[in-house]
């Protein structure tokens, strides 16, 4: 989930508004019927491959655990809303508490990461300061360490800061991955906003911070939305750090950690796991829905000649 979301947001987020124009129907864009059939077949197959796992999780989420895995699978087999009811009632663990923890941690990560990344990205894009170029390189290097290597040093760090086991500590850990990436993206975004707009703002009476706050942030809204989405997804679906850095108490788990109760040593409660997964996916889908219009829009159009 983490890897795919990164790729998606990376691709769609890169300077919106500069996407290639859709192929116009006309003499040059016309395809032969055979090519058309081939293209659509390929697209349909690819879509099915992408959608099927999610669809099957949805189907499974209504089945009792015992009938989730069968030799001849069927769409409906004793299906009911029982799995959902039991999960929400807290029979399998304090699901609502996990949900709250995840929302809090992912929400804080998003806000903190976007705020830090926006100001850093703007500074790197507009000002020259000692170490400005090195900073970006450093950000890239930080991204190159595998997560597993980081767990022990980060654990020690959090311990010495007294943040081990707290949600705040986890938020900071998530920011270490989210902030560099978001900074990179937002720097690119700010680079795309003409410098004259800053200057016009200065002439109109804004302080440098005023330019950032009243002109740059509104103009970078698509970029902010994309980076916010990335930061949210990073924190929302993450397991390794969350299980290492949060206390083992059931009520302090995040969703991704909590889901492990359905996977036990000798059996897996597939129906419950699927139902919980669907519930977990809802907030992520909502966030995506909120930002999707920004993923493709270019707000900076029309500011200068064009």
């Amino acid at each position, binding site marked *: 989930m983490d890897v795919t979301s990164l790729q998606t947001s990376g691709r769609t987020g890169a300077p919106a508004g500069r996407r290639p124009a859709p192929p116009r129907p006309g003499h040059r864009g016309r395809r032969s019927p055979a090519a058309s059939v081939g293209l659509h077949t390929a697209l349909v197959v690819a879509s099915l491959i992408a959608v099927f796992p999610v669809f099957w999780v949805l189907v499974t989420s209504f089945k009792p655990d015992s009938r989730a895995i069968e030799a001849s699978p069927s769409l409906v087999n004793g299906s009911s809303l029982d799995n959902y009811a039991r999960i929400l009632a807290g029979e399998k663990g304090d699901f609502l508490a996990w949900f709250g923890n995840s929302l809090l941690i992912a929400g804080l990560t998003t806000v903190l990461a976007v705020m830090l990344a926006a100001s850093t990205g703007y500074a790197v894009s507009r000002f020259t300061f000692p170490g400005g170029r090195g900073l970006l390189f450093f950000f890239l290097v930080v991204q190159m360490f595998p997560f597993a290597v980081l767990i022990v040093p980060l654990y020690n760090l959090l311990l010495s800061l007294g943040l081990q086991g707290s949600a705040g500590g986890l938020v900071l850990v998530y920011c270490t991955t989210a902030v560099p990436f978001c900074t990179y993206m937002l720097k690119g975004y700010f680079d795309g906003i003409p410098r004259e707009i800053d200057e016009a703002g200065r*002439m109109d009476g804004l302080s440098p911070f005023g330019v950032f706050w009243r002109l740059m942030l509104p103009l970078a809204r698509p970029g902010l939305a994309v980076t916010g989405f990335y930061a949210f997804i990073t924190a929302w679906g993450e397991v390794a750090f969350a299980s290492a850095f949060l206390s083992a108490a059931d009520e302090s788990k995040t969703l991704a950690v909590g889901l492990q109760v359905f996977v036990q040593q000798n059996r897996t409660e597939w129906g419950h796991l699927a139902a919980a997964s669907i519930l977990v996916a809802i907030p992520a889908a909502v966030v995506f829905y909120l930002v999707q219009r920004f993923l493709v829009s270019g707000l900076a159009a029309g500011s200068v000649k064009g």
Partner: protein
Amino acid sequence: MAGVSYVKASRVYPGNPPVRAVDQLDLEISDGEFLVLVGPSGSGKSTALRMLAGLEDVDEGAIHIGGTDVTHTPPKGRDIAMVFQSYALYPHMTVGENMGFALKLRRVPKETIKAKVAEAAKMLDLTPYLDRKPKALSGGQRQRVAMGRAIVREPAVFLMDEPLSNLDAKLRVETRANIAALQARLGTTTIYVTHDQVEAQTMGHRVAVLKDGLLQQCDTPRNLYEQPANAFVAGFIGSPAMNLKTVALTSEGAVLDGLTVPLPRSVVAGHDAKTITFGVRPESLRLAGGDEAGMKLTVDLVEELGADAYVYGSVDIGGTSERFIVRTDGRTPPSIGSTVTVTLRDDNEVHLFHPETGARLETTKAAPTA
């Protein structure tokens, strides 16, 4: 409203050697004046303007606005408005919000802002577009919004950085006249940067010509045209450009092929070099009739503009082929490839410059002595 003065103001970019983008600029711009800064690319004209705006540091010297030293004042404290080449409108605001933004920042009451924006919009024919976003406007409309944003503020000084270069030719001529008229009406001191000498000559009360960061000359358009201070200004101002040739100097005068131009004795006597840079505008040359002496010009190209025609051709001077441009009557231009004889309309209509320094050698039109 206020006057502006540059006092030996310099902008030096670090490097090896350091680049003096604007070098010891001394300029006095009086209250209500329309001054045009003109020069080729890299001449420092935009930098000079941005120094006044507070967008570039002033490394040496000082800048005063209305008698106050603003050398180190941030842009917001200078009471100036600027129109950018790219317009730099705020894309997320409507036309009305764009124009009223500066007043909003100064916490001017909403009704006042609305009234002032409406007034400026009326002046610029923007009233129907006040609720539109910049991207829904044409290039000319965007340009007017940028002007409106400056006007609404009623600043002490307007700064304009090539505000017309993104418009098409027809609109540019139209807007040129509108800006000049608007400036005359508002009476606000205006500094205008352009690389287009026609714009400079038609709009400015005075024109300052810059080259390589150095002020070459600052004078009225007419004086620049008639009394260019050096060969650079002579070649830069005027379209088509002045014919500038460095030719041999004899006791009779400057020798151009079959034509020897008599020069004032004061110039010949005070000048010890063997050559002289000789300049003559295309309209100061004419086709010679009959057996008059003159330069033999081989016609390469004829530009017919209707009333006039410009003849581009080459003349053999001292073994090298030199290009000349001659203005002739538009009805009877010579044909391409033919050879015509060209002479001066008036021996006084020549400009003389030092062949090395380029400085003007003659400041007044002395009567020829030869």
